[in-house]
């Protein structure tokens, strides 16, 4: 069996006195499109930060491409798109091109300039998110959804195997959410990029994903999206912490 791209082994995390995550086991294989869903404060963003090595778990191991996270040096193989709302100030004087090419910083390394053909790479990354005509625009002039696509292009420019997104549709207006997820599906299926995202809009994302992990401090369900339908009401209630109603429509599971 191929080495999983991401493997969390018995992860726990504690913020001072509060337990944020307990005994998390999660394996993400190549080609997966996993949505980590859960209520506010369920530890979703904390989990992503642990995967990225931004937070050190109190207990357990994180393996990236089979290597412990602190020994994993090829960070460019993992593209990260943080929550837009707190990531940058919209008045920043930079063009889309300047932002996208900055995704190559780690790959190029210190003491080196951007290569001559960087513009071509930028155009290509922008093309794969449908933003090729915006290279010279100021980043602050774009809509929330467009900015988010630019940030994905910034992550894609270093040719990552995995794309990790934290609440990518926050600040994207609802009519564009669908096309945003379609673009992610395209990246997953055509460009063979494994995608892990954290979200609470289960409804919009459910057509795109292959796997679901239901998180509330610990993982209550992880498996194929279709198997989520088999979760009993008791399991759902235990996950969400209060009574929830499972609504099925258009083959989607909504909670």
């Amino acid at each position, binding site marked *: 069996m191929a080495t999983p791209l991401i493997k969390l082994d018995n992860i726990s995390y504690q913020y001072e006195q509060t337990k944020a995550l307990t005994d998390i086991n999660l394996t993400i294989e190549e080609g997966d499109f996993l949505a980590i869903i859960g209520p506010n404060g369920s530890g979703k963003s904390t989990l992503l930060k642990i995967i990225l090595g*931004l937070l050190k778990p109190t207990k357990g191991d994180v393996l990236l491409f089979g290597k412990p996270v602190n020994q994993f040096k090829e960070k460019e193989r993992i593209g990260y798109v*943080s929550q837009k709302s707190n990531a940058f*100030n919209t008045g920043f004087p930079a063009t889309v091109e300047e932002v996208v090419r900055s995704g190559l910083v*780690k790959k190029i390394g210190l003491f080196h*300039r951007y290569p001559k053909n960087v513009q071509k790479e930028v155009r290509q990354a922008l093309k794969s998110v449908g933003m090729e005509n915006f290279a010279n625009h100021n980043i602050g002039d774009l809509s929330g959804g467009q900015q988010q696509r630019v940030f994905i292009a910034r992550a894609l420019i270093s040719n990552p195997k995995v794309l990790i997104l934290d609440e990518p549709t926050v600040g994207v207006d609802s009519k564009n959410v669908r096309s945003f997820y379609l673009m992610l599906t395209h990246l997953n299926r055509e460009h063979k990029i494994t995608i892990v995202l954290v979200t609470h809009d289960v409804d919009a994302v459910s057509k795109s994903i292959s796997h679901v992990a239901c998180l509330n401090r610990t993982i209550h369900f992880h498996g194929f999206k279709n198997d989520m339908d088999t979760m009993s009401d008791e399991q759902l209630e235990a996950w969400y912490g209060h009574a929830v109603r499972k609504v099925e429509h258009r083959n989607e599971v909504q909670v």
Partner: protein
Amino acid sequence: MIESILRYEFLQNAFASGLIIGVIAPLLGVFIVVRRLSLIADALSHVTLAGIAGSLYISQSIGALALLNPLYLGIAASVTGSLFIERLRRLYKHYEELAIPIIMSAGLGFGAIFISLAEGFSSDLFSYLFGSVSAVSRQDLWIVVIIAVIVILFLCIFFKELFVLSFDEEYAKASGLPAKWIHVLFMVVTALVIAGSMRIVGILLVSSLMTLPVAAAMRISKSFKQAIFFSITFGELAVIIGLVSAFYLDLAPGGTIVVTSIIILLLTILSKKWTKKGVLSQ
């Protein structure tokens, strides 16, 4: 004017230092402003005051050190202050801005003590507070040159990394950049530029040369490259106009440079209003 510059060494020193500072202060200032660290520059300039006043006092009381250039202790104080600010920012994680009033008042407090201990360096002190056209020595000029070399080298090496760090700190950390170290180096370089610029612009106004030209440039820039280009252009304009008018009108150059910067800023704001769409809109 050109004739006077050719004739008098002090004018050569002032103009050469001014022209260099006009490049490096706004250049570094672009990063300071976009990283929302403008007030830290102010705090550091006040710490520099403590170093300068301390040095002037030492020169006065210890005969052997009478010729000590106050810039050295000024630089030392400023760099130490920058490291303390970082320490405090980590200590008060949720109230990062607290570091600024703490360091600023510490600087002013020590400054006030040294100034009152030593009596009679008021004219020297005035030139340190508001800048001077006549007090820049050849040695000061060389210090500014060395600082400029350090700044340019630092930016050549870390330009890409600083851009990422400024634009999106979390992303920088997630992509494995040594964000903490780059930031500490950045603060130290900022402290050097503040100490170096102070001879011309003065302690109280030094941060303005790092922020006002950038504030003006940001009004009309679409890209980061443009922001840097316009910041340096405006910085140089302010220094040249400021120094010339300070020389002819016998004013403190800190004042004339800052007022020129303010006028440039107002013009960019107005020009944006007049053209509605922005001077450089495509």
